[in-house]
Structures are given as C-alpha cells and as structure tokens.
C-alpha cells in the first residue's frame, strides 16, 4: 500500500493567530460574557429610551390589565362585615362604601384595611377577597374599660388608653369607672388595678384623677380625696382600707387622706370638723389646767 498524499495540515498564519487569540482567556471571557452583555444592555437601553415603544408598552399593559380585571372570577359584588356591632358595622360599611361590582385587581386591600383600622372602635381588622365574589372584613372591636372625662366631654377608652367612642352622659355607661386628668389615658391599666383594690368602697368611689401625669387621686363622694403616692399606689390604698376597716377612717368628716408620704398618712379635716376639733381640744386643755 502506498502512503496517501495528504494536503498540508499547517494552519495559515491568519488562522493560527485567530486560534491563539481565541485561546487567550481574557479575550474568550470578553466574547462569551462581555460582548453578549453589552449587546443586550445596548438593545434594552435603546428600547427603553424610545418614546414610541414606551407609549406602546404602557398602552398594551393597560389593555392586558383591563382584560384580566374584567374577568368574572375577580369581580367583587358584596361586602361582608363580621365581628362588629351593628352601629360599628354601619360605620365600617360607610368607610368601605364603593361602587359595586368592582374588580378585585382595582382594590387596594392594605389601604382599605388601614381605613377600617383608622376608625376608633376598631382594634384590628382583616380585609380579604373571599370566595363567592365577596370582600370579607373581619373586625375586632375595642372593649371600653373606662370613661375618660375630658374638658369637652366624655369618651370611652380601652385598656391601652385608646379612645373607643364618645358618650353624651356618664349615665350611659354607669358600669364603667371614670378617670380624669391629663395623662390618665396612658395609665389606664394602673387605674383599673387601683379600682379593683378599692372594690370595698365601690359604692362611694366617684372616680380617679391623674395628677401631674404621675400619680392618682381616688375621689369618693362627700368630696373626699385619697391622694395616692407615685410608686406602689396599690399598697397605700390597701393601708387606707385597713385603717377604714379598723377605725372607720373614711366615715369621718375628712376632706383629704394624704398617702404621698409613705412614712405616715396625713388627713385633713373639713372646716366644721376642724372647728369642732379645736373646740374639743381647748375644752380638754382647760380641764387639765
């Protein structure tokens, strides 16, 4: 067998150089990643800066969105409010008032929820698109625990001190205690605790007054005031109750029982009682002399 004559296998100089260029790592990286990246970026920028393209994109996307929003699966035809008393439900419905039916895509549920929560009696609310074309609103009401007397009227507050509602007269909610004074709303919990301790005096308690945004005065009928200290007011009140049990302290003609000094309670007599006290005291002095 004769050896076959083959063509020259040598690469041309150009081919050789191109091959070497292609085997250069940096050049290869550039061609494989840099160049496509540059092309795509340039194309994207070119499209994005073209006014006609942008108009077209906006129009087209609006069209598509409208088509989707018009689907019957997404229409909302009624609103269901749960967990609210009837007058609150009416207020919520008023807040959510919209033209039905509406597409679920056009609703901003967060915004609706914020609107509902912005109502004072609402503690929390959940707004969701439920099945059967319903917008379900689950409301948790605030529970009023006290009446807060303000210069311009009476309002109901819950445990956190948030306003729940306003009432026209104290008698509307005779079951709730009254608190007054600025800063009272921040210490509602503490006030309620004091009132729980003062349960034996429940018949006589008129209310609590916050003094100087730091301490409480327990106001009883006959204009008696128990001035409680800033710290540990409950213990001080229990001391007064003890005194009352033993010596019928509060039955007496006192105006103020001052417990602000922890060492000793101070009482102030009413003016006629003071006169009588002085008279008795001078009489006894004369007897002694």
């Amino acid at each position, binding site marked *: 067998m*004769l050896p076959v004559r083959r063509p020259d296998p040598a690469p041309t100089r150009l081919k050789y150089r191109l091959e070497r260029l292609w085997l250069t790592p940096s050049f290869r990286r550039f061609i494989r990643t840099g160049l496509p990246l540059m092309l795509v970026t340039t194309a994207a920028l070119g499209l994005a800066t073209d006014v006609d393209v942008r108009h077209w994109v906006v129009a087209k996307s609006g069209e598509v969105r409208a088509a989707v929003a018009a689907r019957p699966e997404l229409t909302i035809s009624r609103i269901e409010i749960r967990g609210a008393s009837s007058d609150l439900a009416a207020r919520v419905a008023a807040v959510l008032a919209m033209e039905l039916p509406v597409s679920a895509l056009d609703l901003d549920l967060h915004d609706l929820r914020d609107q509902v929560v912005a109502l004072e009696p609402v503690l929390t609310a959940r707004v969701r698109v439920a099945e059967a074309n319903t917008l379900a609103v689950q409301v948790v009401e605030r529970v009023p625990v006290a009446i807060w007397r303000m210069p311009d009227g009476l309002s109901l507050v819950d445990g956190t001190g948030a306003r729940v509602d306003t009432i026209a007269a104290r008698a509307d909610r005779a079951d709730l205690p009254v608190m007054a004074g600025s800063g009272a709303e921040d210490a509602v919990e503490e006030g309620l605790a004091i009132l729980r301790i003062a349960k034996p005096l429940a018949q006589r308690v008129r209310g609590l007054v916050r003094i100087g945004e730091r301490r409480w005065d327990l106001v009883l009928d006959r204009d008696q005031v128990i001035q409680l200290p800033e710290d540990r007011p409950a213990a001080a009140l229990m001391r007064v109750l003890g005194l009352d049990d033993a010596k019928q302290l509060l039955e007496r003609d006192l105006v103020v029982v001052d417990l602000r000094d922890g060492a000793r309670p101070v009482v102030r007599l009413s003016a006629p009682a003071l006169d009588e006290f002085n008279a008795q005291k001078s009489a006894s002095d004369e007897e002694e002399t």
Partner: protein
Amino acid sequence: MSTLFESQRAMRQRREAALRRGLVAILDIGTTKIACLVLQFAPEQADAPKRGLTHGAFRVIGAATTRSRGVRYGEITAMDETERAIRTAVQAAQKMAGMRVDHVIACISGGAPRSYGLIGEVQVENGEVAEADIGHCLASCDVPEYGDDREALHALPVSFTLDHRTGLSDPRGQIGGKLAVDMHLLTVDGIPVQNLLHCIRRCDLELAGLAVSSYASALSALVEDEQELGAACVDIGGGTAGVSIFAKRQMIYADAVPMGGQHVTSDISQGLHIPMATAERIKTLHGGVMATGLDDRDLIEIPSAYDEFESDRRQITRAELIGVMRPRMEEILEEVRARLDASGFEYLAGQRVVLTGGSAQIPGLEQLAQRMLGRQVRIGKPLRVQGLPQAATGTGFAAAVGLALLASHPQDECWDFEMPADRLGHRRVSRALRWFRQNW
C-alpha cells in the same frame, strides 16, 4: 561574551516569567518530527520543601507531533516550511491544552556543537565563599577563541575546587582561600541558532530557553546512577546523532554526528529503488540490523509506485533490507565511537552507553552497539512524566521530555551568577583596543 551573557540572562528572565504564569511550551525541532508539549506548572508554594528533580511539579496538558519539514541535519534550511510545521504542532498542542502559550523552550540538534573545558581561579574575598566569589571565579575563566560565528549555548560549572578539596558541586558558604572552577562551555554555530530564533519569532512565540538536544535527551534517558557514575547518552535522531557524556550529574562533553535515521532511509530508497516514503515505511515496519537465518525466508512486499500491481510486484527478503541498513548504522556507531574516544570517556568510572532517539527503536541495535562500542549498552526510554500521552513515551521523545525536566529544574549556568562589573568593563576596553589595533 557579554552580549551573549545578556541575551542568555534575558532568556532566563523570560523563563522565570513563564514559570510564574505556569504555562510553557516545549518545542523539539528535529529532522524528522517536530514535537510540542505544553507544560502546566503547579503554583509554587512558599512553604513547600524544595525537591530535587521535581518531576511532579509540572504536568503535560498538551502534546502534538508533526512531520518536520525544511530541516536537514537538525538545522533549518527552508524557513517557511519549518514555520508551518511549527505552527501545526503548536496549534495542535494548544488546542489539546485549551490554553494559549507564549513562551517556548526549544532545543537544537544540529549546529556542530563543540565542547571546551575551562578553568578559572580566584582568591576568595572574605574567607567564606559567597555568590559573588563564584561569579568572579566563573568570569575569570579564559574563554578560548571559538570563532565569531559561533555562540556559547551552555556554560556549566562542572565542579569547584576549594583549596585542595576537589569535586565540590556547591561551594557556597564554605570556608577556603582559593576557589577554582572547571567549566564546560558548549558552543554551536551561530547561523542555525539565529534561524531557529527567527523561525520561532515568526510563529509569535517567545524563546524562553535553548538547549542542545543531546543534553536534554540525556537528562531524561539516563537514570540518576548513570548520571552520577558516568555514562554516555547517544541520541540517534533523524538527521543527527548527538553524544553527551555525564559524570557527577554534570554534562562534561557533548558532540554530534551529522548522520541519522534519514540516511538509513535514503540508503534503502536508493538501494532498493523505491520512493522515500515507502522506504521509511518498510524501515519502520520490517527494519533491523541483526540478521538471522530466518530472515532469508521472510519476504517483504514492496508496494508499487504504479497501479499495475499485477505485473509490477516486487518482494525482497528481510535479509536484503538488513544488508542495506546495517552498514549505515555501523558507520554511525563508528563515528560515535570516535567521538567517545576523543572525549576521554574511557577514563570515567561508569562506562555505560544509553541509546535513545527515534532510530534507537531499530530492533537489534542494542547488540550491534554493544559489539561496535565495546561497552554496556541499553536502550533508554525517557522518564515518565505526568500527563504525557502514551504515544509520546517512546525513545524519540527523549529530547522533548528532557527539555521539560530542564525547564522545571534548570541547571545553574554561568549566567545565573552576577558577573562582576569590572570584568565586563575590562572586556569592553580590551575589545575596543583590539578593534583599534585591527583597524588602524
């Protein structure tokens, strides 16, 4: 010597740069084939201990061989042809490696290498031998007039003598007064080297090292004991047969016989009247140098150059083929023996001869060489290195593998030491004086 000093030093720096990059190509430009290996070096770890001959430090990641063209007797005769062949080999090796190589280390097999033994002697300056003392010592060697058209390719300090202690391989840090050095200077013809440089430059490659091929093949074909005790490596290639002698791990002599396997092929072609390509094929398939009785009956079919195979069908016996090949191989080995005798090889402790190179594959050459050279002979395959393909593990790749070893673990040469500045100045002045004398 100073321009050469500078150019060799620049080559060293390029090699360092290539090793730092971790990629270097080996180019063995032979008469019959051009082999290109792409070596990848492991990144150098600062804390790793230095190993001796670091075979594991590199890995062959690309290898390619192509038929050589335009090379005769190891010298480039047709630049374009050779350039194309180099491009073929380099491109294929690059493709296999998947990396571009910029630095090549090449070897030259032709150029009539000639060895000189130089002796230098200086006084050690500070009692302890420092690097500068070695530089002084190497510079003090008086270089013979080897001719303006020749270039020094290697200048290897073979052994140092400190006072009366001889055979030191590294006298640095030792205490002594008088430092002497035996240096082995190897020169080759300038023209083939220039051609080779130009050819490699035309392939957009940078030369990072140049070695004589017989030196390189001895590095890979001789085992360490042979290098230590003394052995000769005969690299019988296509166009030249290189001879190098090692003792104490240093090359002490190198020479080349401008004859090789291609002469055998041309003998077959002429003697049997067949084309060169056919002759080469018959030589590689059926060749041999030791005839036996069976060879008379072993018929070899010679393919016809024409298509009339019915009428023009020839057969020769294997004995005939051996009869053509043997005289030429004997001639080559005779020449080699003459070179070995001239070198004083008989005074070395070890007398072993290692045959390598493509033509060492001829069956029976071992016995023939034993008879001709009168010494222990073995066929030396190159050292196995990591990643070398099976096809490139034959004796023909000894020079390429040896170059790879040389690249990974270079021998200290004269130009690795700082040449003292006063020497350089002195040379320059004497050269100027000589120029004046010659021209006025």
